[in-house]
């Protein structure tokens, strides 16, 4: 049964964590992580592989429990009320996969049922037009190309127009035209007073879109900055200056990829 709809948050804090810690056996994924994201921000969460980005998103969306620390997302504690927290947010997981044997349209109907929405036909049509997948609406998801799957997953994350959205590598497999449309949408969505939490390796994209960026490594938030304040310096320079690339096992030779030459 769907609980009563939650009124929109009146707080100016969309995401707040304090001392968030998570261990996987001997490995420390999060080491007393403190994040504070105000409402209406397009927040970029940058870090090398294994920095703790996915673990953070999974905790903030109630998919994982931390070992210690507190979190609040859209006014809900995702540790204590994971299902309620997921009602409030949208999630685009990295390497996500829409259900194989539903058509794209049926998948959106499933999302609507799961989220207790009435009709989403109009929203689906708008998204199909925005990301150009009208012709795929009646195709089984298992038969979609990688790019079409990504478009489908982006749509489901925003279908209920959540006040906070977590998007993990949203531009993967999208062609340049659709990438631009998606970026434009994310920016507009945040400007409308919603919060977009973007986890990515594409630093140029983060510099272009984000209103604030957090650089994380080994489960710790190393620095937060507004990319617009960087002046001559690029975000990529700052990233390498902040992250200990030896311990992060990032090869600077891969900087072209990191810089967003998608």
């Amino acid at each position, binding site marked *: 049964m769907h609980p009563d709809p939650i009124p929109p948050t009146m707080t100016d804090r969309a995401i707040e964590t304090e001392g968030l810690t998570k261990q996987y056996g001997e490995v420390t994924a999060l080491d007393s992580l403190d994040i504070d994201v105000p409402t209406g921000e397009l927040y970029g969460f940058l870090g090398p592989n294994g920095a703790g980005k996915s673990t953070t998103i999974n905790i903030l969306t109630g998919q994982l429990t931390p070992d210690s620390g507190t979190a609040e997302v859209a006014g809900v504690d995702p540790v204590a009320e994971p*299902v309620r927290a997921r009602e409030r947010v949208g999630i685009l997981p990295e390497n996500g996969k829409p259900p194989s044997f539903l058509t794209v349209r049926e998948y959106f109907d499933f999302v609507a049922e799961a989220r207790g929405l009435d009709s989403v036909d109009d929203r689906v049509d708008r998204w199909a037009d925005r990301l150009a997948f009208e012709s795929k609406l009646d195709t*089984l998801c298992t038969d979609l190309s990688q790019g079409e799957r990504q478009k489908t997953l982006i749509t489901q994350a925003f279908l209920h127009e959540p006040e906070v959205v977590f998007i993990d590598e949203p531009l993967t497999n999208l062609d340049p035209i659709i990438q631009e449309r998606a970026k434009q949408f994310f920016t507009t969505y945040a400007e409308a007073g919603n919060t977009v939490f973007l986890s990515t390796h594409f630093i140029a994209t983060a510099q272009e879109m984000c209103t604030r960026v957090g650089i994380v490594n080994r489960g710790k938030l190393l620095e937060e900055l507004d990319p617009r304040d960087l002046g001559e310096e690029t975000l990529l320079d700052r990233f390498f200056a902040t992250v200990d690339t030896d311990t992060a096992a990032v090869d600077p030779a891969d900087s072209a990829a990191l810089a967003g030459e998608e």
Partner: protein
Amino acid sequence: MVSVRYLFDQLLREEWRMHARLFGGWRFAAFPVFLAALAAGTATFFALAGSETETLLAGLHVVVALVGLQVGSIGLVGRDALGDLLGDVTLLVFSARTLPVSERRLLAVFVVKDVLYYALLFIAPLVVGVAPLVVLTDLSVAVLPRLLASAWLAFAFGVGTSLLLVGLATRSRLLAALVGVAALAGGSLRPGLVVAFTPFGLYADPSYFRLAVSVTVPLLAAVVGFSLFEFDRTGTTRTAGNQFRRLTGLFGARDEQGLLAKSLLDVARSSGSLWKVLLSQGLIFGVVAILLGYIPDILVGVRPSPGLTLGSVLALGAFTTYNWLCQYDDAAFFGTYPIDLARVFEAKLWAFLLLAVPAGGFYLALGTVVFGPTSLLVGATVYVPVAVYVFGVTAYVAGLRPTELLFDTPVFMLFSGAVMAVLLPLVVLAIAYPLAPTRISVAAVGLSLVAGLLGVVGYRRAGPKWTRRARAGDL
């Protein structure tokens, strides 16, 4: 050009690493030991119950041939099914697109590797498990090597048959179905054919002719199957109307989050569609019917109650229905929506009942035609609660990944222990049925109702258990 030997080595290594990674090395390695122990326990039980040794060994050949049938079809499983089952993995068998190796060659080596794997890790332990019969019955130690050889060949017979049917099916499904039905009918109506042309004959009545037949038939079937097999290179894009909306409309409040509709569509639209539910139960019905029909006095000179036997074994076989219902799901998918896993298991139970009850009911009705209505009513009454028990046990011990049952020793031990705790008493009651039909019927129905309640408890606990494990990052 890459050599077959190299491909074989790499595929074998990949298979081991995949299972060792999934379940942990020792958990996977302990599986054959547990299987041998389980087989030994079963053989001892039936030997002490006075079963004919030859009947037990015939049963062993049937079981390994069925495993072969299953393995033959797994060798041809699609990339999507594996991906849905195991997550984002790429197996060497799918590398024909990027490497200069032919699909047919890769698949052939893959199947040979699978056959060797199962022959050593599944079939050999099952044969080792009948060793207690040497002490408990008149079975000679000298026969055991022949038994192992004929069991391996029976397994190969199953694999070959499966490959032949799958290969045929890529050309004509109707033809494949006709061949399958004809083979089953031939074996049922003329059991002599089974002895003459299957590896069981090599064990039962060894001769050079039977050895030649036992080796040639599986090989020939596999080669013909492979040469007939047509790889799908069309890249067909499948479309469908909005059945999801129709189903959620139909189920109304029973399916508030669309989980029941999604589960049913997964089964209906995946390979084999809804027919696979009926076919798998049909296979079980066929084997039990043959055993009941042609070997009427296998245990202590008494014919077991057909209804009670069919009801209990079909309920156990409904495990495969649960497997299909979960094959395309994982907890991580549901974790991205406001969906409580408890609701997922609830929807799975309804879907399970919607599929398993008609399928079981059909074969129980068929059993009435074949064996008469006397004990079938009891079988029908027992079927639903025992199926719910199997559902509850599976949901609790294996969650949404029941396939792990096959390889994860502790999970499999828990599952088999729980199932045996109900199935064995029901088998004993089925054997004893003719002695006191009314009282035994009441006892069987009572036992099944208790089991059904335990099944409900199991599935209700499955939600919180798997939610806890998912959130701990322990899946």
